[in-house]
């Protein structure tokens, strides 16, 4: 039941998983190319503006005199990094809270879960906008990532909790307790491996969620627009009325890449979810490793 084995299984049998890997592979290569960019990402007017896609500029150039292709590579890298950072930080929160809440039960569980439900219900977008409103230009990329991971853990913590609650009643947990393992050891060594597939699929969903919010916030102009991101590119394109001016390539390519990222991540999460569907998972686990 290790994660690596599950991934190998999915690669062999799931079409969605393969599609996701291919799409994200292309996006990742694009992001990696940013290190080979001939232009500094923050400089403007380094090439002739408004050139349609051609041999010299594969995706054309922007009205700000930037090469769309090379600008896009940096933007994709930053957007991906942002999503991964948010997902990583919020995974830690949801894992810790989900494991403790599910294993301990009682009043700890009740307190943590009402906190959890609160964060599920509270409308995030108005809060994020309020945050931008008070922070203004000191709202950095890292700060936004920190806030979003603080707000984005709740739903998955509940999912992890429900898995741990059923793991707790199983024999190996009792064996662990009788053989003198501490709570931390049981949670980390015994329960964690069972929770990892879910963490994997929620990670994909969480990256999607955070990138979606980041794109939306940037497009509205509510982030630090000096760091090139996909949303930032669309923001600047809108600022220069790219669609009306006929500079369609400035919007079309970032949109295409972000859609590829989304569909890719979603496919991965979907195939993983199908794999860990509770019914098939339990039949597999009781027949196999347990």
């Amino acid at each position, binding site marked *: 039941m290790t994660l690596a084995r599950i991934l190998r299984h999915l690669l062999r049998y799931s079409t969605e998983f393969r599609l996701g890997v291919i799409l994200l592979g292309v996006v990742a290569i694009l992001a990696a190319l940013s290190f080979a960019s001939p232009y500094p990402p923050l400089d403007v007017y380094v090439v002739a503006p408004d050139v349609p896609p051609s041999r010299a500029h594969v995706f054309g150039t922007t009205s700000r005199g930037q090469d769309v292709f090379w600008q896009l590579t940096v933007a994709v890298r930053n957007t991906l990094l942002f999503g991964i950072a948010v997902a990583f930080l919020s995974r830690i929160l949801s894992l810790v809270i989900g494991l403790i809440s599910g294993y301990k039960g009682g009043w700890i569980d009740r307190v943590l879960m009402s906190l959890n439900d*609160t964060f599920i219900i509270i409308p995030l977008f*108005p809060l994020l906008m309020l945050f931008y409103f*008070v922070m*203004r230009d000191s709202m950095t990329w890292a700060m936004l990532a920190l806030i979003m991971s603080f707000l984005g853990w709740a739903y998955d913590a509940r999912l992890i909790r429900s898995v741990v609650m059923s793991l707790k009643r199983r024999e190996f947990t009792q064996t662990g307790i009788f053989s003198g393992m501490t709570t931390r050891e049981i949670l980390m060594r015994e329960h964690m491996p069972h929770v990892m597939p879910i963490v994997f699929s929620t990670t994909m969903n969480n990256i999607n969620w955070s990138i979606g919010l980041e794109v*939306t916030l940037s497009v509205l102009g509510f982030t630090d627009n000096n760091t090139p991101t996909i949303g930032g590119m669309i923001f600047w394109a809108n600022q220069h009325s790219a669609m009306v001016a006929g500079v369609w390539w400035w919007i079309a390519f970032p*949109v295409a890449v972000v859609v590829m990222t989304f569909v890719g991540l979603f496919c991965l999460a979907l195939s993983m979810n199908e794999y860990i569907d509770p019914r098939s998972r339990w039949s597999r686990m009781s027949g196999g490793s347990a």
Partner: protein
Amino acid sequence: MRGYLQYFAKRFGQFLLVVFIGINLAYVITRATPIDPIEQSIALATSFGNSSPEAIDAMRRSLRELYGLTGTPIEQYLIFWRRVATADFGPSLSAFPTPVGALIARALPWTIGLLAVSTLITFALGNLLGGLAGYYQRSRSLKALGIIAIGLHPIPYYIVALVLLIIFGFVWPVLPISGGAAMNLPQGFNAAFLGSVARHSILPALSLILVGLGGWFLGMRSLVSNIVAEDYVVYAELAGVERRRILWSYVMRNALLPQFTGLAMALGGIFNGAIITERVFGYPGVGALLVDAVYAGDYGLVLGVTTMSIVSVSVGVLVIDISYPLLDPRVELK
């Protein structure tokens, strides 16, 4: 009945907690800032022309009072809560001297009308189609629908709205792309105005439905395809119960329960959706109001809309929660 009262008390406690934490978050966010909103407003106001130092000082004092920044921290905190409780956020700075409450009251019907209706349509349509797709698993058209739903689902809302705007605004301009109703019509209950409202709401509603449909569809499909394999459904089939009746009263009814809790969460997302939809389609609702308030630096209005959205979302969730036992009699037993 006692079970229901207990359930109600628990839900109500959760509601109070949500409001409490939400409002406190809003308070902490506005106070934890390294930037002084007052100095910013003054800088904005004095950037054109000259103002005497006395005038600036007077402005600073009245702004401090307006923002509730006078007195000790505890007093400020209490002032903040009193304002929330009485829904009094003072006059708007960007639409002076209209009170913030009046601006929100004007915008709220638009947002609730557009978003509540499209959320409900999405919920009904997605669950219906998902249920059918889960029950009639061999149907080709339902399978194709599933692929479309999966394809559309992960695309960020903004992108879908933008594409619709380009298609129906530039490529094939048949629908109005901006505003809530035609400007030259008197507002009221007459056919011309209501028709105009409906026409203006098609594109924003369509974009919301397209994006939201996939989630309900996928959730319902997997729920139904699990339920179909349950013993009681197999038994009903063997006993010769009509297939249509199995689908509606045995399968869908049970699958709908978890989806109904999901509806509460979707309601929570209404204000997230409102902001972008209304911005893209120039719809005169609360979301557009919030975006404009942020651009204009209107502190009272931003805070008013934020707290209003927290409270109204919690109320919506509470209403769904307390009506849940009517659908699922088992809840009472807990």
